[in-house]
């Protein structure tokens, strides 16, 4: 039996046992997301497509799956979706500028040595844009998670204090965001640490100097991924809080107007 199949079956059984129907949805969402990613790769193969635009569309679909399919379509997930899209657009611009400046696109010297004997590396794709796309995809899961974790309790607070001002609502959103910031960044940091273990051992074994590490393509690109993840998670906190407080207060005002009209 294939390892992946057995692990997937175990994950499915656990998700159903503990999560019930929601567990099944969570499991299916993994498959849907995998499908979106493969489809994105398929479109990225066409040199005429702009990888940045493609990845923005992919991220929008992925956050639809994470927000609307796993949860459901309501005002909480809708504002979370809008905040995710806005954050992603800001972040992709920032990351694109950084990848361009740092020149970390494509493959490293060590990889190229091995790859160039097997593959043609002049494949006509824009690897700078692809690198930016890759970095944004690595944080999309975390960004949607923070968005829904902020808008959902904000709705609760709004329901419990219907007269709350926009400013107070915004501040409580920020406060909720701060509480989850630490554990969310940790989730990604450790995922990246785990993934870089082979690389870290390589650096130790080859006895790279600090100067070599600080300038090497591979290390700076991994560092950029970690830093962008942190920036993305932090940035969505005020964005989601502001959009949600604006929306909720606006809706309250409209409802009040309607009542007056009746």
């Amino acid at each position: 039996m294939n390892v992946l199949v057995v692990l997937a079956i175990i994950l499915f059984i656990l998700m159903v046992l503990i999560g019930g129907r929601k567990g099944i949805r969570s499991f299916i969402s993994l498959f849907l997301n995998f499908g979106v990613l493969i489809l994105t790769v398929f479109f990225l193969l066409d040199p005429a497509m702009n990888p940045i635009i493609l990845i923005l569309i992919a991220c929008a679909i992925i956050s639809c799956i994470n927000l609307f399919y796993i949860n459901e379509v309501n005002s909480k997930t809708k504002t979370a979706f809008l905040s995710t899209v806005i954050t992603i657009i800001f972040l992709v611009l920032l990351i694109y500028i950084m990848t361009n400046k740092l020149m970390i696109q494509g493959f490293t010297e060590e990889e190229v040595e091995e790859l160039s004997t097997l593959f043609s590396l002049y494949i006509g794709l824009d690897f700078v844009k692809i690198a930016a796309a890759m970095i944004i995809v690595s944080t999309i899961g975390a960004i949607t998670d923070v968005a829904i974790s902020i808008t959902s309790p904000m709705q609760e607070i709004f329901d419990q204090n219907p007269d709350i001002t926009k400013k107070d609502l915004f501040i409580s959103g920020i406060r909720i965001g701060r509480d989850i910031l630490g554990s969310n960044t940790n989730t990604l940091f450790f995922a990246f640490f785990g993934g870089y273990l082979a690389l870290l051992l390589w650096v130790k074994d080859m006895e790279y100097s600090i100067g070599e590490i600080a300038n090497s393509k591979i290390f700076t690109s991994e560092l950029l991924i970690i830093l962008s993840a942190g920036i993305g998670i932090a940035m969505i906190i005020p964005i989601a809080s502001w959009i949600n407080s604006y929306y909720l207060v606006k809706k309250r005002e409209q409802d009040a107007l309607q009542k007056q009209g009746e």
Partner: protein
Amino acid sequence: MNLKNITYKQIVFYMSLAVLVIGSLLFVNNNHSFYDRPIAKVLEADLEEATDVVDAYGNEDRLFTQSIEAEMKNGAVKNRNIHLINEYSSSGAFDQAYKEGDELFVWIDEEAGKDEELTGTIQDVKRDKHILPIVWIFIFILHLIGKRQGFFSIISLLLNAAILSYALDIYVENSDIGLLIICGVTVVLFTITSLLLINGFNEKTYAAIIATLLGTFISFFITYAVLWMTGENGLRYEAIDFLSRPFKPVFLAGLLIGSLGAVMDVAITMSSSVFEMYENNHAIDNKTLKQSGLHIGRDIMGTMTNILFFAYISGSIPMLLLFLKNESLWGFTLSLNLSLELARALAGGIGIVLAIPIGLYISIFFVNRKRGRV
């Protein structure tokens, strides 16, 4: 008086921070003499030639040749000009165009006479002066938005990176101690430091620490058992880059560390909400706690597994594209490049789901102990 004191402290804090930022930026822009490797700063880059190429698979690309005039910034040849040639492609899989102001590590060809121009080859780009501003942006954004919590997550990142680096040093120096044992101990340290930093010294944190360790190690043993039972069928270890050590322990240790953050997140969410419910209503019975806890766990399980999934899979995108553009078959490409990442994501998912009941029952156990004392 008190207020004055605080502002005074704040002024000192922000002044020293400003000095630190400006000082470090000045340093990375002028640290050439600290490098042994020769560094050249590009003064002028002219495009000499451009040719269209088509590879064996019909991929069209464009190759360029740049003639570069640069000034040496360090060593015995400082301030002398050097002539460099740079070849790059428009796709830039492993090359790039250079422009005025870029700084490059170079190899100088045998010493030319005092009046002759130096020639050499480009080795790499000096990236430290570009990465440092991003580090500062990261610190500022996290601190500005997260305040105390943002500051703690930066400290936690630094501390954990230091612990990991130290642990790997121990492994490299004493290879007879297994990597898995070292990483197992490291995981315990990671969990204790991160959760204490995020949540402080209290019973919520202790419950989360125990739940995290149980969840991480149980899911690790499940994965280990699956690997053993299936004979690792379907895992393509040859896909690990930068391998200087036996591949299997490196993969397993990475798997152990990789899921830790997600499991911690679930454990702390479970214990915080169980304790919160108890604090709000001391009379709440275990059955209600269990039900509401399970409800919260269900809400986070999907998004948490997706976080890990994207964090792992995304890194493979450039490699997938390279394989597919070289007309490798989809099945081969995906299984070779994604098998380890998918295994990690699934194992992490198992850890996340297991952490829900484990975190729930341990928190309830702690709450009941608290009840007994009251």
